[in-house]
């Protein structure tokens, strides 16, 4: 097997790429071939997942945790710069490819049911396959530039899939916004590569991380700049303050896309990047603190917005932003394994929540479609009591909700608790972490509250969909509920991946990742709290989650809601939250419109057209023409005039000569 490992590893991204090419051709020439498209689209994911599994098993059997680098060809080599197109399998990328192909397969299967009647079915699967290819390249790339190919590639697929139904402007706008905001972050990534190459003379992960402790003085300006620039990239890709605004808008895409790209995989790429560069971040305490701080603030900030959203997917979107904040709090604290753990569990339960929401929207949409109603199929005010019609979806989404809220023994409890525990432990050395921990706890309270709100308004109380529609609400077909059940099982069980030692577990994931994190651990050892303190933290976290859920159950009244079109406008703080703290409006007024105005009115119309072209270029031409005209006026053909001019000229020359 070890001999075949490189080939198998290449198959992992290559098979989805082949799926993209095949489905892409079909999308252009035979868009109606849905059966073939489904077989290819889902088949390549199953194969990729199989290859990933086989590769990870073979890697584990090597008992050599050193990264296995497999080179395809020399990609970019000029002078000292040398970049191969190479993949790297190590414990960290192993976890990532399992998450991506595993959750990816389930979401592809779900998509077969969800997108079945869409005229762009083939195009959809082509993009989705392409996304998986780029995502695998991102996590398997053995150097910064190869990772960057995946990094921008997933952004491209995100752009294409958010704007999938491109004939509506709002969708196309959302896709464009996602791409451009991500590009702001990508400039950071690009600049970070320049700094890293300048300092270490390489861009390969193995060489950079081996040389980093020598090449970068700990806490120095260069490594801090590199780490902060990398984090700017993460803030774009993983929707952190100040670049998070694209993610809620990204909900314009088909719901399985939201589950795969905007919850489970792509948006976690930033967390992966920080974990991958743990050596750099461990060398840059200021950058790490920034990561943790931004993560904690984002976690709370996004959670406040989620409190007042009515669109079921927007609640989940802000919840994702908030949970990504937790992951950054984790990796910024130095709990890289904890961050990756939360990444994995979140991938399961958030994918489940999104696909569940997809199942709800599917049912709502079918009902409205049958009665030719144009109400909003995603507005929770139009739902209510759906548990009676969609029992599977409701049950499974409750499991995911409790996991997200952090109720034991579901997976989210373990992973979130690990991050908050690590933050609290760090605070004993660096007190600012008390603040980060408190922000995280506050966000946990709000999380439990808004998720319970979502479930109450969607599934319980009286139905508000409409009388005729109510009779038409149906549970989704098995091809959609099947993946939900699998994700539900994972949501329950994934905690076992990294059961903490406090509860008698073996911290499996932590031990698996230890070789990747060894240098960072040495530079920045984790702090162990006394057992009593650990128990107190666990109890506190559970109490906070329970409080959030119980408060929501006690104070929210689904029976008092009215359908969206009858709802009164929001007022006061509720309106501010519903309007997302007016951040989009702020960015628009402070950045977007001034730049556009400056470019159009000043740079183009004044400087380019009037000044450079008008005054200087055409002005020169006009002056030449005027001189020419004046000259031609002198050519009157009258001898007398010529004589006068001649005499004047002679006098002038003589005068000059005499003097």
């Amino acid at each position, binding site marked *: 097997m070890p001999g075949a490992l490189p080939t198998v590893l290449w198959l992992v991204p290559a098979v989805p790429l082949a799926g993209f090419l095949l489905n892409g051709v079909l*999308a*252009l020439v035979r868009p109606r071939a849905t059966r073939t498209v489904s077989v290819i689209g889902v088949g390549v994911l199953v194969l990729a997942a199989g290859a990933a599994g086989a590769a990870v098993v073979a890697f584990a059997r090597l008992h050599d945790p050193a990264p296995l680098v497999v080179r395809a*060809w*020399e*990609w*970019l*080599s*000029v*002078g000292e*710069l040398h970049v191969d*197109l190479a993949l790297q399998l190590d414990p960290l990328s192993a976890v990532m490819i399992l998450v991506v192909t595993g959750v990816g397969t389930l979401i592809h299967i779900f998509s077969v049911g969800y997108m079945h009647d869409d005229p762009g079915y083939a195009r959809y699967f082509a993009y989705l396959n392409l996304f998986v290819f780029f995502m695998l390249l991102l996590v398997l790339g053995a150097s910064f*530039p190869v990772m*960057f*190919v995946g*990094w*921008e*590639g997933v952004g*491209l697929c995100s*752009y294409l899939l958010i*704007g999938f139904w*491109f*004939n*509506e*402007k709002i*969708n*196309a*706008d959302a*896709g*464009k916004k996602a*791409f*451009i905001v991500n*590009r*702001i972050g*990508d*400039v950071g990534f*690009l*600049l970070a*590569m*320049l*700094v890293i*190459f*300048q300092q270490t003379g390489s861009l390969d992960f193995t060489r950079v991380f081996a040389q980093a402790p020598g090449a970068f003085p700990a806490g120095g300006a260069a490594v801090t700049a590199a780490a902060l620039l990398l984090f700017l990239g993460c803030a774009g890709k993983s929707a952190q303050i100040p670049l998070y605004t694209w993610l809620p808008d990204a909900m314009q895409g088909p719901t399985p896309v939201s589950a795969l790209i905007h919850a489970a995989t792509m948006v976690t790429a930033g967390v992966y990047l920080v974990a991958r560069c743990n050596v750099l971040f461990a060398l840059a305490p200021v950058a790490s603190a920034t990561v943790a701080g931004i993560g904690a603030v984002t976690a709370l900030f996004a959670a406040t917005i989620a409190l007042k959203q009515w669109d079921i997917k927007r609640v989940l979107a802000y919840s994702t932003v908030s949970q990504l904040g937790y992951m950054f709090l984790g990796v910024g604290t130095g709990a890289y394994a904890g961050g990756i753990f939360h990444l994995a569990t979140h991938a399961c339960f958030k994918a489940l929540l999104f696909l569940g929401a997809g199942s709800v929207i599917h049912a709502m949409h079918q009902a409205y479609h049958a009665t030719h109603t144009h109400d909003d199929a995603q507005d929770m005010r139009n739902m209510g009591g759906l548990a009676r019609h969609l029992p599977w979806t409701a049950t499974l989404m409750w499991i995911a909700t409790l996991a997200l809220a952090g109720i034991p023994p579901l997976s989210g409890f373990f992973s979130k608790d690990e991050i908050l525990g690590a933050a609290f432990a760090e605070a004993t050395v660096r007190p600012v972490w008390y603040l980060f921990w408190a922000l995280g706890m506050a966000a946990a309270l709000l999380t439990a509250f808004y998720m319970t709100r979502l479930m109450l308004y969607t599934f319980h109380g009286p139905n508000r969909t409409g009388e005729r529609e109510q009779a038409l609400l149906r549970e989704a077909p098995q091809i959609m509920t099947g993946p939900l059940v699998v994700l539900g099982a994972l949501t329950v069980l994934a905690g076992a991946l990294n059961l903490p030692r406090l509860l008698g577990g073996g911290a499996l994931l932590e031990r698996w990742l230890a070789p990747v994190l060894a240098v960072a651990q040495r530079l920045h050892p984790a702090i162990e709290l006394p057992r009593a303190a650990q128990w107190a933290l666990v109890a506190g976290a559970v109490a906070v989650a329970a409080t959030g859920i119980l408060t929501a159950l006690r104070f929210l009244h689904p029976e008092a809601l009215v359908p969206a079109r009858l709802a009164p406008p929001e007022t006061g703080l509720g309106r501010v939250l519903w309007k997302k703290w007016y951040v989009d409006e702020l960015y628009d007024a402070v950045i977007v419109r001034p*730049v*556009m105005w*400056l*470019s*159009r009115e000043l*740079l*183009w119309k004044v400087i*380019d057209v009037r000044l*450079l*072209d008008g005054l*200087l*270029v055409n002005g020169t*031409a006009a002056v030449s023409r005027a001189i020419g005209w004046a000259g031609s006026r002198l050519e009157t053909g009258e001898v007398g005039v010529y004589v006068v001019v001649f005499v004047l000229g002679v006098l002038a020359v003589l005068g000059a000569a005499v003097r």
Partner: protein
Amino acid sequence: MYRDLVLTALLVWPLLAGGVVLLLPTRWAKHVALVASLVEFAMAVPLWWTFAPAGGMQFLLDVPWISGWGIRYTVGVDGISLFMVLLTTFLVPLTVLGSYRYITTHERAFYALLLVLTAGMLGVFVALDLFLFYVMWEVMLIPMYFIIGVWGGENRLYAAIKFFIYTFFGSLLMLVAILALVMLEGRRTGVYSFSYDYLLMHAGGLGPVAFWLFGAFFLAFAIKVPMVPFHTWLPDAHVEAPTAGSVLLAGILLKMGTYGFLRFALPFFPQAGLAPAVQTAIVALALVGIVYGGLVAMVQPDFKKLIAYSSVAHLGFVVLGIWALTLQSVQGALMVMINHGLSTGALFFLVGMLYERRHSRLLDAFGGIAKVVPLFAAGLTVVSLSSIGLPATNGFIGEFLVLVGTFRTYPVPAAIAATGVLIAAMYLLPALQRVLYNPLDKRENEKLPDLSARELAVLVPLIACIVWIGVYPQPILRRMEPSAARFIQTVRVAPPGPILPPAPSGGAGAGGAAGAAAP
């Protein structure tokens, strides 16, 4: 045999073919031109394999021409000009094919001029005698003037004259500088020669006058690139030119400016070109080009103008890379020159295809057409992505190398240039949206035909190159590396000397204008 004559054959063949086109019936013109340009390309392709990367100037032919004045016919290519020759011969057949429906009047004259233009463009890249270079520079200028002025849009005369006078002004300055250079060298060494090698070897001893000569060369090339603030002829020329004109203008003609920097301006006068004040001014102008060109592109309502301004931004990367003088930045600049030719060429083809269907280039005349013309939409998307430098397309390779290399010399300018990557997304993605996406709300667009086989034949080779260079650029990089290294060495080893005379404003541009009078 091939090695000695190929370059000359590449220059003579299109001239002959152009003559034949004029003689044959009109309806044959385009077919003959297509076959001739394909033969031309076929003759050039073996250069790829027979070129020896470490071999310096090769495929040389050197014969006396006007012996009394030290003028010779000398041609040859190195790793810098090789790819310009290949790019030119590759693009010309595509422009012929792309003009099949666009050009409906005076067909014979059009295709004959196109072939003459081909000879002129190739001549500029292979000439190793400054007199020959100057002649070729003018040979290239005149057909383009007619292509814009006769087959262009409504305002074609204004654009053509502006293009001509602007470029001609620069080339006259260059002529004066060439003559001055030959005279000064002749007076100093006793040998009056226009030979590139000879002048290069002896140009070091010129003293302060080198500054003015550099200024004249620089101005001629900067107009051609074009660098801000000499760029305003470009949007007009592009908007008015027929598709073939725009493609060759952007794809090849602009590169003659940066090629001139690489071949003449900097190697001849390194002390002047690298004097701190001059260097600062040029790097600043390159950055202005990147940022300003991008921002102005963003607000253009006309798709062709948008692409024209985007060219200003892309060429800013080239100038930046050249002046940063590291192996990565110079090779990056060469890659951007190739990539811009492919990607912007393809963009002009695509816009031309839209124009043939709707007789409009305004972004707002379209909207939502991806639904009607999916093949066109796929093509425009891929090409736009390459133009904004998406990794795994050619655009990324060049810009990344320029940034990596520039950062080592000028960290802050490199950081500013990196924002150009963001600005590129800000001007092309909205354009893409306004054309392809959004509601399909104009009735004229509901029945647009998708790409024809002929149009696919134009685009597919370009897209294939876009992906190929993005994924496996090493064969190209390997071939250009020794020449790029030699360029850097030539420029670097020049002894530092007292260069800057008390210039009136310190700006190279102002100095160049005055320099014309100096000798």
